[in-house]
């Protein structure tokens, strides 16, 4: 795999296909959910083939269940490999989470405790993924709503260990980090201090929803609104540390018109340009 450009991208939504083809906006890349392109043919593949000619591509999986004990689904890995062979994406990423139980797919990114045992499981799974897919993958930090009494490792330590053991890169989702920090009352800047920044190959930005609980707000990673101001501030701090990185605007629910996404991408682009100028100075 080559690399995604250090530029802003957007999550591709089929309702934006015509507008994207007509205006061909200046974007660093498009990201797709791999599972939506695991059919044999038809519109999804026709659209992806057309867009692939114009844009760099990030393949983002949601269904591999890297974070659960048990074997990875070999058929699902083979389908991912087929997509990679067909479209040659610049990046493949998945989540530090699990989504299947036995024969049932639960369609959500579910949490895991951070222990030496789960670390070994995740490392084994990532080794298998990278071997099967023939490329490095990026692992995304989750947005979480609960903690586990069993956990003995901070998330940042867990991720750093995974990077060290497997050679994978990381996808730093700044909104997920902010959601988790708010929900578990930790300092996001301390998290960033401990995060293995040298491994960051991509950044995600998205909106979240908020509910009020007695002890304070409950933030939910909803992907249905603009990126929140505190997340933009943390994003600028991340980019100041990492230098420019591929940065994705994710908006999966109540999807707005393309110009709204492009405006969010342009705002990320301004942060990247400023960091690039500082690096050149």
């Amino acid at each position, binding site marked *: 795999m080559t690399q995604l450009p250090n530029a802003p991208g957007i999550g591709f939504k089929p309702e934006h296909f015509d507008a994207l083809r007509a205006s061909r906006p200046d974007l660093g890349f498009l990201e797709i959910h791999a*599972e939506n392109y695991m059919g*044999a043919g*038809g519109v999804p593949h026709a659209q992806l083939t057309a867009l692939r000619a114009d844009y760099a591509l990030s393949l983002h999986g949601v269904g591999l269940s890297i974070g659960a004990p048990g074997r990875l689904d070999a058929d699902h890995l083979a389908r991912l490999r087929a997509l990679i062979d067909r479209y040659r994406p610049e990046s493949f990423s998945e989540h530090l989470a699990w989504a299947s139980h*036995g024969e049932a797919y639960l369609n959500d990114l579910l949490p895991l405790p951070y222990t030496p045992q789960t670390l070994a499981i995740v490392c084994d799974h990532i080794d298998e993924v990278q071997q099967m897919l023939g490329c490095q993958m990026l692992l995304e930090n989750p947005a979480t*709503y609960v903690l586990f009494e069993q956990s003995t490792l901070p998330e940042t330590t867990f991720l750093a260990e995974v990077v060290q053991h497997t050679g994978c890169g990381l996808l730093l989702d700044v909104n997920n980090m902010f959601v988790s920090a708010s929900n*578990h009352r930790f300092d996001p800047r301390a998290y960033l201090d401990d995060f293995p920044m040298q491994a960051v190959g991509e950044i995600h930005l998205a909106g979240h929803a908020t509910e009020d609980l007695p002890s304070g707000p409950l933030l939910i990673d909803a992907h249905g609104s603009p990126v929140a101001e505190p997340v933009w501030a943390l994003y600028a701090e991340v980019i100041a540390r990492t230098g420019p990185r591929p940065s994705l605007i994710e908006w999966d629910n109540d999807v707005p018109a393309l110009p709204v996404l492009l405006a969010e991408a342009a705002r990320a682009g301004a942060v990247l340009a400023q960091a690039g100028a500082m690096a050149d100075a």
Partner: protein
Amino acid sequence: MPDPFTTALAAALQSGALPPGVTARDPAEAPRRFAVYRNNVAHGLSRALATRFPVIERLLGAEFFAALAPLFIAAHPPASPRLFEWGGAFPDFLRTFPPLAGLPYLADVARLELARGVAYHAADLAPLSPAALAALAVAPDTARLALHPSVQVIASDHAVGTIWAANQPGSPPRDITDRPEVVAVLRDRGLSVQVWPLTPPEAAFVTALRDSLPLLAAAQAATCHAPHFDPAPLIGRLMQAGAFIAPSKETP
């Protein structure tokens, strides 16, 4: 074999209990915070089912559909992350769900919606050329017209095509006479999924082609319903839509 950890969490996602070991900064709020996952799973799968069966949701109403979906999800959860393949058991579930006994057409409308999903994702195969069609027509007793995998025939004791068409977004309410109908579902050359009403001889003809009968035998199957049936206009429409593919023996 599923492990104890995911087994406990998956069970709690169903039951509403708090799984062992799950906590929060304020432990009293752990149940409320864990409920975010339960809501995500339930809502996400319910919406995925509605995406697959939009006309069923419209016929039942959003509220009824949202109440019914968890029952189907508990009995027939998706087996893989390819949610567009999920729902094969939904027609039978609707057929045998006692509160819906008064709506016997629902199961067949669901079959039609399943067929549309199959057509949407069917493989891309090159359509038969007019020259190849002409060559096949020379020997109709042995020649077989191979249908594209998107082409499916849905036969029903109910007005399945009319009900489906009348419940598209923006369609005004109208009275429907319930009577047996057959439709073809197929994907055209522009990749749009079409629903075509078929007359009884047309249905017999396409079904015979689907069953790989030779052209002449398919035409004979149709003339059982209408002695003077001429398949040429239907073949022309199917050709135009790209519904025939080169037979496998012709592909190198």
